């Protein structure tokens, strides 16, 4: 299965005079865990936001699930949004609703399933991400950082999306929780056939679960491929990012 799920061609993004992306290309294949890497301000989150229709590039084409985002109609956009789940960095749970209501809301809006089944589904999603059952009655303000991430993941998985976007899923988590989160993501990818796109800084995540990634820097994609492929290249940013040679730990 090598069909391409997301394809970015010649993406140019600029905020005013500040150029963020200078003709960026990358492609994400089905069923892989793909990461957008790069230092702070390298525009990886911006690229992610462009993929999920929160921002528009200045030029270039971006295709998600075969649909060109430049010529997308509002109806297609609405359909597309139902096929992906997004986990925001800070969780972005609706603070006026409990965790359970945050998840159930999607079922109420997009399906006409009976309340009993919605209740069951909310229960298994909460269980799936490793939250205790009573968490569904808590408000986001009553959750710890790790629980917020898990609850947000449960919400992102509510409609059984084929595509999952994660913005720094492990930031702010302790190392053990981070690894558990990684394992969970990998497990979900295998069992639910997900394609996962994430922005991350976590080197352990990169080593353990990422299949392929794009390293952004100097407004370009410096390298794209698997970890071993990328480490073949010689580039100061690659050395810096993976702390090779004079930058620290040996590889």
């Amino acid at each position, binding site marked *: 299965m090598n069909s391409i799920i997301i394809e970015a061609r010649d993406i140019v993004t600029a905020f005013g005079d500040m150029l963020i992306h200078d003709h960026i290309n990358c492609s994400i294949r089905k069923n892989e865990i793909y990461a957008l890497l790069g230092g702070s301000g390298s525009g990886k989150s911006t690229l992610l936001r462009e993929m999920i229709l929160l921002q528009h590039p200045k030029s270039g084409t971006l295709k998600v699930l075969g649909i060109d985002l430049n010529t997308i109609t509002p109806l297609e956009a609405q359909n597309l949004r139902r096929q992906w789940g997004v986990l925001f960095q800070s969780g972005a749970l609706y603070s006026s609703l409990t965790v359970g209501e945050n998840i159930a809301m999607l079922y109420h809006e997009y399906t006409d399933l009976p309340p009993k089944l919605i209740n069951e589904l909310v229960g*298994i999603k909460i269980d799936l991400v490793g939250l205790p059952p009573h968490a569904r009655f808590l408000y986001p303000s009553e959750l710890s950082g790790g629980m917020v991430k898990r609850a947000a993941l449960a919400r992102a998985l509510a409609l059984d999306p084929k595509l999952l976007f994660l913005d720094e899923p492990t930031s702010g988590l302790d190392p053990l929780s981070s690894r558990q989160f990684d394992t969970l993501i990998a497990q979900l990818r295998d069992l639910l056939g997900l394609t996962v796109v994430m922005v991350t800084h976590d080197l352990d995540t990169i080593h353990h679960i990422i299949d392929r990634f794009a390293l952004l820097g100097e407004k370009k994609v410096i390298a794209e491929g698997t970890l071993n492929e990328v480490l073949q290249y010689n580039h100061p940013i690659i050395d810096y990012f993976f702390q090779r040679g004079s930058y620290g730990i040996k590889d």
Partner: protein
Amino acid sequence: MQSSSTAHLEIINEHSHTLLQCSGMWTLPYLSTVAYQLETLNPESSVIWDVSHISEIDSAGIALWQLYHRAFEHKGLESKLIGANPDHDKLYRLLYSHTYEPEQPPKTHSWLYVLGHETHQNILGIGTFLAFLGEAFVLLVYTLLHPTQIRYRSIVAHIFATGATALPIIALSAFLIGVVVAYQSIVQLQKFGADIFIVDMIGISLTRELAPLITAIVVAGRSGSAFTAQIGAMKMTQEIDAMKTMGFDPFTFLVWPRVIALMIVMPLLIFFADIIGIFGGMVIAQAQSHLSFSEFVHRLQGALPIKHYIIGVVKGPFFAFLIAIVSTYRGFQVSMNTESIGYYTTKSVVNSIFLVIACDAIFSVLLTELKL
């Protein structure tokens, strides 16, 4: 077999068991009809689920099966599954890895408990407000003993924000109040041919009561809500904690500049509202009973003793203090969720308008008793 673009459930009643023939796409968008079919199904014998013809299944499909599987077993019926393929099995194992027990929602309390709890909270609230007030005054005394710590820049900035920029809306409100009072009273006064007393009416009611009250209400809605929202947002972004760790006291930096600025501004705004309000009355007096502006002003000099004007203006700092202290206090109560900003901003405006009116009532009673 039926078309596979939707979920199907065929119920076959055999003498020893009920066969549920499942087929098609058991995925989220298609499940509702099947779910209602299962809800109305009332099997009397053991149930066999044949899932071999399911073309696609997701977590909702598994959950639906599991829900009714449990329900049938709960009724004491046997529920068996045949034809499951390894993919179904893997998904099931992922979703139901633990023995899943539906959690009961926390109990809701009786109205009596809620009433008691709320009352208790409100009484405690008075305590925390008094503590806030006390701390504020301790720091005021400290700041006054160390005048270099007074935030003059901040005070001036707040004077501009709460005073100068409020002039248009105050002008408009005061003018309209002048117009309304003049219009209503002139009709009544004309019945007695006492048109000229419109001057007394306008002069005394506006300067003594209406202008201070209208100004305070506009300021509470405009600046009081802004104070709560500003401080609340700072609390949410941990700016207040940052200030504390740097030794910048929030009372000296945030509370007193706002309170002092508003106390300076309010009498000025009331004076401004007096003038505009009387002008509004003058316009109506001329239009309705041909009382010229010069006659009006001439009459006003005799009809309006200075004490009414002074009483009106003196109320200003009191109202300002109440509005500013309540709205900053509410700002500090904002907690880490986005909803609480809206909640406490509403509370701050409601509380400060109520306090202003209560304070005005006290003034009214006191001054009347003092024969002023």
